[in-house]
């Protein structure tokens, strides 16, 4: 089945230790998103790609970076995780720009010790 896959599902890191979360999709969708969802809160968009065109939300901290080496894969890099970065990180895809529906992966739960 075509889907959005996130690895790992659970990630534990130490304060200040860089961490990378990955997302892959078999849907061949053009648009990919990264959201941060803290406990009992709505998903908050961090950034998204239209193909390789990167779009950063104005309030996304510089500590968060992203890479999309090809259509299928997208990575979220947190350069120096703080305790406040502990959250569920959700990857989503959409077929193309202007097509509203987004398909979410299962998320990666990040714990910062």
């Amino acid at each position, binding site marked *: 089945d075509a889907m959005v896959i*996130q690895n790992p599902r659970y990630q534990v890191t130490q304060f200040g230790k860089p961490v990378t979360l990955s997302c892959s999709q078999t849907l061949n969708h053009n648009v990919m998103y990264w959201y941060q969802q803290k406990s009992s809160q709505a998903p908050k*968009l961090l950034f*998204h790609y*239209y193909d390789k065109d990167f779009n950063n939300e104005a309030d996304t901290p510089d500590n968060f970076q992203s890479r999309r080496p090809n259509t299928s894969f997208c990575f979220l890099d947190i350069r120096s995780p703080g305790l406040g970065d502990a959250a569920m990180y959700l990857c*989503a895809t959409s077929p193309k720009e202007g097509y*509203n529906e987004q398909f*979410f*992966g*299962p*998320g990666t739960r990040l714990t910062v010790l």
Partner: protein
Amino acid sequence: QQQVKQSPQSLIVQKGGISIINCAYENTAFDYFPWYQQFPGKGPALLIAIRPDVSEKKEGRFTISFNKSAKQFSLHIMDSQPGDSATYFCAASRPNNDMRFGAGTRLTVKP
């Protein structure tokens, strides 16, 4: 600035009852209004969605009512079941894929 306001924050309904969740938005550029269902530890899954050219959309036990002039929309879950217990998010999206979520409603359906 919260672009989509959702209420209530939590809702408890008896099995077989009707669950109603409301959302309001400000930006008239939004043209797509989905509802997502999220179970603990899982990503949100699209439940049902509507565009502003219709006032109601029904899929099984789930209905969206949309009031364009009031800039409000709501989700109705008929014959609510314990398996419907989850967090529900409304959202609003602009044509450029910019989607904004409501704060979520935690629904509990009691047997």
